[in-house]
């Protein structure tokens, strides 16, 4: 196995594009190295992208934040203002693993690991984040919900790397939240995850919403119907019941070692309601 640690995206792309065997991008390695150690994968090339400046930086851009794909959970938490502007995203990223893992785990890796249960992904989708992808054909921006297609399957072409994410400027009276269900309190994989971002008008009615569910389908879902019901005219308890139903209706989960279909569907509705209540509160306070 070859290990390369280039300093530019162009070099990284060239290495990945030229390799005929299985090539993998190494960010924090908290999934990749575990999969190698347990013989799930056996790559011939690892391209470590942590030496590339863009992947390791957070900077404010267009009123929002550009976050490098290899920025760690701990760095997200420590970055000024990020947690108060996009608390749902930071909280979601910080749910991954232990304190030690937080020092390594990245949102780029979380997305590109290709798990429908990735915690940071529904939060990024709800926040309207876009991934900046660099490859042999140049750079393109893609909505985060369009990056993953199915378990372990991404919409990236050979040689393409997710370099950074852009969290947009947050509109006024907007709040985001992410909740997941796990049987333990930490150190676990989401049985269901739900990210919600919503915007209120001056009277406190919801005018725009994005609802994303994780671990209930082959990929994280952006649930348009759930967002639509939140912008209705009914009283909040009614809206939340409709949200619950819409979230459940969007689920197409499997039975597996982490949960049953029925359970995932029920809990998706519960988490959608609970996440929405937090997002409402944050929107009112923002």
């Amino acid at each position: 196995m070859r290990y390369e640690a280039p300093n530019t995206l162009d070099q990284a792309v060239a290495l990945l594009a030229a390799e005929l065997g299985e090539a993998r991008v190494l960010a924090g390695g908290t999934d990749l190295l575990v999969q190698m150690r347990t013989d799930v994968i056996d790559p011939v090339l690892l391209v470590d992208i942590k030496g590339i400046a863009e992947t390791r930086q957070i900077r404010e851009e267009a009123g929002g934040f550009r976050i490098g794909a290899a920025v760690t959970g701990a760095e997200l938490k420590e970055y000024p203002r990020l947690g108060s502007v996009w608390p749902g995203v930071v909280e979601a990223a910080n749910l991954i693993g232990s304190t030690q893992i937080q020092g390594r785990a990245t949102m780029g890796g979380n997305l590109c690991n290709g798990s429908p249960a990735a915690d940071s992904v529904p939060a990024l989708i709800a926040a309207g984040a876009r991934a900046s992808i660099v490859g042999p054909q140049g750079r393109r921006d893609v909505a985060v919900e369009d990056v993953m297609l199915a378990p372990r399957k991404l919409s990236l072409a050979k040689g393409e790397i997710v370099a950074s994410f852009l969290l947009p400027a947050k509109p006024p009276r907007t709040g985001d939240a992410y909740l997941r269900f796990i049987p333990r309190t930490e150190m676990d994989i989401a049985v269901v995850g739900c990210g919600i971002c919503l915007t209120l008008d001056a009277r406190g009615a919801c005018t725009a919403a994005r609802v994303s569910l994780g671990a209930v389908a082959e990929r994280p879902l952006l649930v348009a119907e759930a967002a639509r019901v939140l912008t209705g005219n009914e009283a909040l308890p009614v809206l939340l019941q409709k949200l619950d139903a819409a979230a459940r209706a969007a689920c197409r989960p499997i039975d597996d070692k982490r949960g049953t279909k029925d359970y995932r569907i029920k809990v998706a509705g519960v988490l959608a309601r609970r996440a929405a209540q937090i997002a409402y509160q944050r929107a009112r306070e923002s």
Partner: protein
Amino acid sequence: MQEKVKDAPSSQFKWVGTRAVRPDGVDKVTGRARFGADLAMPGQLVGKVLRSPHPHARIRAIDVSAAANLPGVKAVVTRDDFKDQPSEFIPAGEMMINYRDVVRNVMAREKALYEGHPIAAVAATSTSIAKQALKLIKVDYEVLPHVIDVVDAMQPGAPLLHEDMITAGVEPAPKTPSNVAKRVEFGHGDVAAGFAQAEIIVERAFTTKPVHQGYIEPHACVASVSEDGQADVWVTTQGHWIVRAHCARLLGWDVGKVRVTAAEIGGGFGGKTVVYLEPLALALSKKARRPVKMVMTREEVFRASGPTSGAHVHVKIGARKDGRIVAGEAELKYQAGAFAGSPVQPGAMCAFAPYDLENVKVVGYDVVTNRPKVAAYRAPGGPISEFAVESVIDEIARKLGMDPIALRLKNAAKQGTRAAYGPKFGPIGFVETLEAAKAHAHWRTPLQKNQGRGVASGFWFNIGGETSVSLQLNEDGTLSLTAGTPDIGGLRASLCMMAAEELGVDLDRIRVQIGDTGQLGYNFLTGGSRATFSSGMATVEAAREVIKEACKRAAKLWELPEDAVEYMSGGVRPAGANAGKHAPMTLSDIAGIAGKTGGPIAGYARINAHGAAPSFATHIADVEIDPETGKATVVRYTAIQDAGRAIHPSYVEGQYQGGVAQGIGWALNEEYIYGPDGRLQNPGFLDYRVPVASDLPMIDTVIVEVPNPRHPYGVRGVGETPIVPPMAAIANALADATGVRFTDLPMSPPKVLAALDEARAAGTAKM
């Protein structure tokens, strides 16, 4: 050795009952301590095991030629390297073993009986070469139908693991083979007559899942065999004399040629009382003529080392309206894994042990399935049967509108009670634990919304056994204490404290070690909560031998008869009529003249420790349920247990807390998940969910002390009983909160929510 208990309050001791600094602490917190995988030897090879991917398959042929020819591979072993063993069951502490099965478990012979069953092992110069070599081994399998569930395995027509297995304990013996290895029965009285008197009868079926001991340190060893046949093994184990015995037997070597050293141990809980890697590493080392190190991955630990049984349990209890139990009956079906030997016998003996019953009957079945062979796990068998019984007792109390502690008090076993498994109890502290629970503030504190409270009790026998200890008086008066039971729960601290107490010297004068198999006589393993009891008893005997010798030496010096010298407060003095004739001498003074008065002074005790006494516990659990997700969180927990006497209370409390932590995992989330292909789907700590620290409340403890009269300091074993009550305490708390009786472990969120929704639909849910 039988001694009178020092029945003075603990405060009268200088060391016993204090929270002294542990002698192994500094090495552990600084990383100096050497665990199983920490030893490296010059020229050492890496040993790896090829494991069966099939849960059940006949092994037609194994071709290792390509692997053996791979550069860097120094040895390969298969079934052909181990002689077959005759079938005979021999006691091994709390479990039984049969070398016919042990040899087949360390290396599959005719068949692979579970996914992960070793097929071959290689020793190579690097891990990657060893792994490559495994891929080159060609195994011709005839895949057979498999059976994972215990009830399925008992059905006629179930795939047979052992074509010649005839159920033992059944008269007349069955004519056809089955997966039922053994039937056991315990009890007395007439249960039918008892049930006829009952005014209330509750009957329930329960299931529990196999759960792993979950020790953080995987199995690991280094073996080195010299050209002249001298063998050394360094290993993480609960019993190195057992490792020596098993390895010598399986390899056909003299016991004396094998020396085994126990490394510092990173958790055992019963799971490190058997051999897996050691015979393979020795066989590889003998072939390769180089040391071989083998370390299991976590995945191998889960796929191939023993959990405890999963089980199906049926319990029926009848009582009068005043709460007096008139009959108890249970049927236990325990899965043993691939080979006979589940802990169904102790499970059957424990089931009703806390209660004074006139009519009781327990029948148990030991059933083989295509899973890894079970190993001892903390009170093996007890938590399963007692979970069921304690749940039914709680239900009877609820139905009668009686306080569950009062109901238990009404039926509690006391000194003189004939236990359901036969013998009469000596002094025991069960009633004292119930009284302490009733008096505890926890029992009276109001619950919050969505919370319930449960109480449950538990019992474990505890054992003694063969034990050797040496205590050398060094030339400056310091002491070197060598014990042979690996320290998994505070043994070294406790032994030093008992020795210091006996000798009247400061604790820091004594340095303690766990000796290797060449340094002491036979020591049975650390298990059955026996180490502090047995090695403590031997330590006291060794210390008294040192005292006796010290008096003898002073008598010689002073030219007095031996009985004219007494030992007090760490020294000797003339006694009786001769008092004051000579200045007292300290133990150091005696040590200084040892050479001139007869040579080195040492105590050496080799005993079969008798008089182990059971320990009872009563636990209180508060559980909060999220009504929408079914997630149960233990929010408050109190563990009350009779320790006999707590030599080092912090360690005793640690045992109580550790048992509860494991019990909470067993109750709420731990389970082996198998696919229809018979393969384990969760061989890792991510999806085999032991509790993490934040899942647990502060586990409060109360140490009750009803001394064991047959131990010099009143010690009972304490390590196992704490894992017995938690499953029922939590199930009873869930019943209190929800109105739903949970009978299937684990009580994981999907199961709890489904049961809640069902009860809501039926109008019986409390939330």
